[in-house]
């Protein structure tokens, strides 16, 4: 068996009985055991892990681990997570009452996605992909409106390029302001009906678990 890691948590009680807990230093990893030969790309497994993420977030905020990290032994967990543990503990303690919300906005200006066949090297193609993503931008008036209604509700915010067609505002918000964030999203939709966007969440600590955005 192998254990798919879902997140890093402050307390064992934040995980059990929703998922299995594996201790790593002062923290705990939430995991789901699957057979060794279970393909990680299986759709049902993806949906199951996504569901567990949601249920775990209902209990307490955690640091999300990118899907695909699987453990063979508890020692394996400690070896791979040791460099992160002190920072995770600091983040989890500071943001126990916070969750993330994301506002994904269709870009108003874009570069078309490069065609692989136009490039003689893989590196050139990857650079062009990156350039196309960075060129995506949000309508300035919408950006201003989004910042006016959403940012005051957040303790942290960060605009980031997602792909060549969309830009995203990530918000770290107190759990007790979630209804206010959703109401602000509705106001944004009313006042900017021509701009397609998706306000979603709550999510665990994903963007703000990054060392650069603590």
């Amino acid at each position, binding site marked *: 068996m192998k254990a798919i890691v879902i997140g890093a948590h402050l307390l064992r009680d934040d995980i059990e009985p929703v998922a299995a807990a594996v201790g790593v230093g002062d923290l705990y990893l939430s995991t789901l055991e699957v057979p060794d030969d279970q393909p990680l790309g299986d759709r049902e497994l993806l949906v199951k892990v996504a569901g567990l993420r949601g249920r775990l977030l209902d209990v307490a905020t955690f640091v999300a681990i990118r899907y695909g*990290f699987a453990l063979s032994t508890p020692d394996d967990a400690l070896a791979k997570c040791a460099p992160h543990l002190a920072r995770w503990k600091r983040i989890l303690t500071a943001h126990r009452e916070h969750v993330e919300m994301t506002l994904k906005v269709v870009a108003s200006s874009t570069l078309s996605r490069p065609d692989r066949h136009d490039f003689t090297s893989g590196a050139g193609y990857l650079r062009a992909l990156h350039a196309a993503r960075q060129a995506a931008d949000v309508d300035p008036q919408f950006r201003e409106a989004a910042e006016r209604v959403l940012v005051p509700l957040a303790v942290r915010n960060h605009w980031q390029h997602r792909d060549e067609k969309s830009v995203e505002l990530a918000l770290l918000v107190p759990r007790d302001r979630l209804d206010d964030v959703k109401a602000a999203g509705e106001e944004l939709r009313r006042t900017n009906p021509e701009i397609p966007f998706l306000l979603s969440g709550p999510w665990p600590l994903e963007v703000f678990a990054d060392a650069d955005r603590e």
Partner: protein
Amino acid sequence: MTDVDLEELPLLETLDHLLDRGVIIAGEAVISIGDVDLLYLGLNVVLANVDAIIRTSQPKK
């Protein structure tokens, strides 16, 4: 947004977060060409799309 059934949006968004967000544990080995970090080594990121791999491979500013 792309033309999808609205009922599928929450699932798509959830899977997007599952596959494309969060801390990457494995895959610290990075293949670089010139001054551009291109690819993580390791099976744990094969489910991420190419853009995600590039993004996570960018040098921290």
